[in-house]
């Protein structure tokens, strides 16, 4: 298996080949692989590829057993005395018996098995979530074979900012690679890679897409498997390769190859491209991550860049293939001769050096300042996730251990008898470990089901477009098996060793005392309950906050406005004329910048003082359409020449910030022009995240040529209908341009909804996790306590104690633990939420004492109910049964 075999036609399935190398003895691997390959080609000819693959796989699997070394070891046994034979039979019998006893025992303790399987299961879900984040980094670019990219290096530019900080960019000037290729020995070829956006359309389908640009060598240097078409197509400047997703989106079931896609770039450039290939889906954790790729020469054309341009700030990320990997450091040094040329052309940031790094050398988003490629996630998050998951798993395992010990109390006699009739200690240990392994395997099932729901919530919170379907399944299965093994050992080894150590005589006489609770176990259970309270408070809070967000007022008509992106005055006017007759449309306005969407910060001057404020360029009807309320003065009038030239409207927050009194007709200096304040409007909420106090705003009249957004107002109930009408109208008028529209409410709420939603599901998930862990924890504590006090309960009952008496007595200890947990939890929850909300800086409702108290009461009751039910079982038993046993 020295050469990596690709999974292409004419080649047998890769995994089956791997299977062969896995178990074949070294001396026969070569001939077996060779023979099978030859047969495979023969089968393709005689029976077709499908049948050939089937046969190959079948043979590879069948070869597993006979090739394994075991088989050759067993050979002599057949001619032996037969002793060995019967020995394996006994082993099988014993194994079967282990399983039988294990299943019987687990079935007898259903509630215990279910609680623990759920607890450990959810802990395993957390591990899966953490694994996903780890895998994103560890399997980054894995589908590029190491051998293929062995000699490929990426170029990094070292920059020095004006304040002295050093930054790393993973790009280089557009002109550098073509200059370096002939001038520096040792560079075999290069590819530049850039990402941009563009409008793409095919017939009536038009959307904005991410477009990547690369040199013709791109597909020679990097492997990207194709579904259809040919990589050679990329040698043509007017060819485009697209992802499977895009092919579906634009062509549906039609054959995409040879179709023409039209791309619109800025400067009204329109270029036609022929689809030359459809790319197979690759995991999102890769450097390039593109949906559509065309030749970089098109980018030069669109931006009218000369081939020797050193000055354009849109630098591509650049990759060199060297003749030998060892020469990288010396070539790095030689590249530095271009630094002066580059710095002469650009004066924004000072480059101080170029470095070549191997293509697969890991860099995270923290390391790189800017570039055109995707990067690994920051290591801090990984560490946090991994340690949290490990801690949760540890707690779950600890609970399982505790419960197992508690359950053993009933099985001491069983162990005693087993030992008397000759069981070795090893066999008892195996029995108990097996039971733990079965429970944890069940948990794994629970974990995998839960993961379908919770893992996407995690990844959306950290903006990682990566799912469990994307990770390498070999690694995943390996990790899961290791996890089950490790968790079983962790949870099961102590009870197994503990239970098997006693002498049978002691066991049968009943001389073994199971210890009750101790400070450590009580503290642990207390902390688990406190944690449950904390996360429940969080879950309840974010649920309530989600409702609040939906109903909160932004100070203008967020719920009535639809925005449509436009590119020019022409488009705006044509659209406006077309739709203004619709009676559902209350008002239409245009603007360069819309509040909540793309208003931007600028500096204005009043007298000698400078103030930072948000500004927006607006058109006619703007304030009326948005529903911003006038407080003083008048609105801007677009028809009025002087308003257009030097009028502005400010908001109340601006007045307060600058401390001006009687603001009407006051003069401010904006973009070196004097402007008069004609009116003051009430404050609105610009952004849910920035601050709770309103932000200052200045509005001016924009040139209609700069209109980017059209605002359309309608009644809330007509929103959807109006949007559909707008889309239909747009498609009719501009069939080749994408209709890009949003509801104002979605614009201002989308991020808040996403964050609140993710937190809500994570907290509620953690509540279920915390709840289950705590319940299993306190359940095992209660069981341990009862096991220790069975006799005492019997005696008390004989002397006339009622069931209620017994429950109250035994519950006292747990009530104290739970009360403490409720207190710690509610205070902790309150503080944690305050800290989190502070960190996210989001407008929110008060956390509130009352919900916190309710949450802790709720968790308290769950705890008490668990212990009471456990105790009830013991309290109900007839004292005769417990006392007679001596």
């Amino acid at each position, binding site marked *: 298996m020295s050469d990596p075999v690709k999974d292409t036609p004419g080649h047998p399935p890769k995994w089956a080949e791997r299977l062969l190398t896995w178990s074949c003895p070294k001396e*026969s691997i070569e001939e077996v692989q*060779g*023979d099978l*390959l*030859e*047969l495979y*080609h023969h089968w393709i000819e005689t029976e077709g590829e499908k049948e050939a693959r089937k046969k190959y796989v079948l043979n590879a699997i069948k*070869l597993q057993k*006979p090739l394994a070394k075991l088989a050759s070891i067993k050979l002599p046994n057949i001619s032996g005395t037969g002793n060995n034979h019967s020995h394996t039979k006994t082993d099988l019998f014993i194994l079967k018996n282990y399983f039988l006893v294990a299943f019987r025992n687990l079935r007898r303790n259903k509630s215990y098995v279910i609680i623990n399987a759920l607890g450990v299961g959810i802990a395993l879900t957390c591990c899966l979530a953490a694994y996903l984040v780890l895998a994103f980094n560890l399997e980054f670019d894995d589908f590029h074979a190491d051998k293929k990219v062995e000699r490929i290096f990426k170029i990094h530019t070292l920059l020095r900012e004006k304040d002295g900080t050093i930054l790393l960019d993973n790009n280089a000037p557009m002109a550098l690679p073509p200059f370096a290729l002939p001038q520096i020995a040792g560079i075999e070829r290069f590819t530049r890679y850039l990402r941009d956006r563009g409008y793409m359309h095919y017939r009536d389908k038009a959307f904005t897409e991410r477009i990547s640009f690369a040199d013709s060598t791109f597909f020679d240097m990097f492997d990207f498997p194709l579904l259809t078409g040919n990589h050679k197509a990329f040698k043509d400047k007017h060819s485009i390769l697209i992802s499977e997703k895009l092919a579906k989106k634009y062509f549906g079931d039609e054959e995409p190859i040879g179709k023409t896609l039209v791309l619109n770039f800025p400067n009204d450039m329109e270029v036609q491209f022929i689809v030359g290939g459809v790319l197979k889906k690759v995991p999102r954790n890769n450097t390039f991550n593109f949906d559509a790729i065309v030749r970089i020469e098109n980018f030069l054309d669109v931006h009218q860049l000369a081939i020797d341009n050193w000055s354009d700030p849109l630098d591509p990320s650049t990759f060199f293939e060297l003749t030998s990997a060892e020469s990288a450091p010396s070539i790095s040094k030689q590249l530095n001769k271009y630094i002066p040329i580059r710095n002469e052309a650009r004066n924004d940031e000072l480059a101080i050096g170029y470095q070549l790094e191997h293509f697969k050398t890991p860099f995270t988003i923290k390391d790189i300042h800017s570039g055109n490629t995707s990067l690994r996630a920051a290591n801090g998050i990984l560490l946090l996730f991994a340690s949290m998951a490990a801690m949760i798993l540890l707690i779950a395992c600890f609970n399982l251990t505790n419960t197992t010990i508690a359950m053993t109390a009933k099985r001491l006699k069983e162990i005693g008898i087993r030992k008397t009739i000759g069981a070795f200690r090893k066999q008892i240990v195996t029995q108990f470990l097996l039971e733990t392994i079965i429970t944890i395997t069940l948990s794994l099932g629970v974990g995998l089901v839960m993961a379908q729901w919770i893992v996407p919530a995690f990844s959306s919170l950290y903006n990682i477009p990566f799912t469990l379907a994307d990770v390498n399944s070999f690694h995943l299965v390996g990790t899961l098996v290791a996890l089950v093994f490790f968790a079983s050992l962790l949870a099961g080894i102590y009870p197994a060793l503990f239970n098997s150590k006693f002498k049978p005589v002691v066991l049968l006489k009943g001389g073994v005392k199971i210890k009750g609770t101790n400070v450590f176990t009580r503290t642990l259970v207390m902390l688990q309950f406190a944690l449950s309270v904390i996360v429940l408070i969080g879950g309840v809070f974010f649920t309530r906050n989600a409702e609040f967000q939906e109903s909160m007022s932004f100070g203008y008509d967020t719920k009535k406005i639809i925005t449509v992106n436009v590119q020019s005055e022409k488009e705006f006017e044509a659209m406006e004329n077309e739709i203004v007759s619709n009676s559902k449309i209350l008002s239409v306005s245009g603007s360069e910048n819309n509040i909540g969407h793309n208003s931007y910060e600028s500096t204005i001057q009043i007298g000698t003082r400078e103030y930072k404020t948000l500004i927006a360029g607006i058109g006619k009807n703007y304030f009326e359409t948005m529903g911003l309320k006038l407080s003083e003065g008048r609105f801007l009038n677009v028809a009025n020449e002087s308003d257009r030239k030097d009028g502005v409207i400010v908001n109340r927050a601006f007045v307060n910030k600058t401390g001006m009194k009687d603001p009407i007709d006051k003069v401010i200096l904006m973009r070196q022009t004097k402007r008069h304040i004609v009116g003051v409007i009430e404050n609105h909420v610009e952004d849910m995240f920035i601050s709770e106090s309103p932000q200052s705003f200045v509005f001016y009249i924009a040139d209609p040529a700069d209109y980017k957004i059209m605002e359309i107002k309608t009644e809330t109930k007509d929103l959807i209908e109006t949007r559909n009408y707008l889309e239909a109208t747009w498609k009719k008028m501009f069939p080749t341009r994408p209709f890009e529209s949003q509801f104002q409410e979605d614009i201002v709420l989308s991020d808040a909804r996403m964050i609140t939603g993710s937190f809500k599901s994570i907290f509620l998930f953690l509540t279920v996790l915390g709840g289950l862990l705590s319940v299993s924890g306190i359940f095992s504590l209660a069981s341990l306590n009862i096991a220790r006090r069975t006799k005492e309960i019997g005696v008390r009952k004989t002397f006339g104690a009622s069931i209620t008496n017994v429950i109250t007595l035994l519950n006292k200890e747990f009530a104290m633990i739970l009360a403490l947990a409720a207190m710690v939890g509610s205070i902790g929850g309150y503080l944690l939420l305050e800290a989190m909300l502070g960190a996210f800086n989001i407008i929110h409702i008060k956390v509130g004492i009352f919900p916190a108290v309710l949450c802790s009461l709720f968790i308290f009751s769950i705890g008490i109910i668990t212990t009471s039910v456990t105790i009830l079982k013991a309290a109900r038993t007839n004292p005769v049964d417990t006392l007679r046993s001596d």
Partner: protein
Amino acid sequence: MMRRYYLGELEELILLTIAVIGMDAYGVTISQELERQTGREIDFSTVHTTLKRLEEKGYLNSKMGGATKERGGRRKRFFKITAIGYRALRESQETRSKLWSQIPLQYQVKNI
């Protein structure tokens, strides 16, 4: 009494096939020839395991050939029947002939 050689049916068939092929006997040719001659489809994995077993029993010996282009540069393992292998085949044949010769004449003619 001389040592007995036990040959399973498949073992015998494979030994005979190797003898038929002669110099060019390796995994692929053996399984293809076997299929052609018997009309039965026998898995390569079965053939391979049987070859290994026969070699362990000493009925076969093998050596690696030179590198070949069409197999991705992988070499072939050629098999040859050993003296013991021949003896085992011969003995099996003799046993059968002996038994055949003892079948009453009328059955030989009628039923076969």
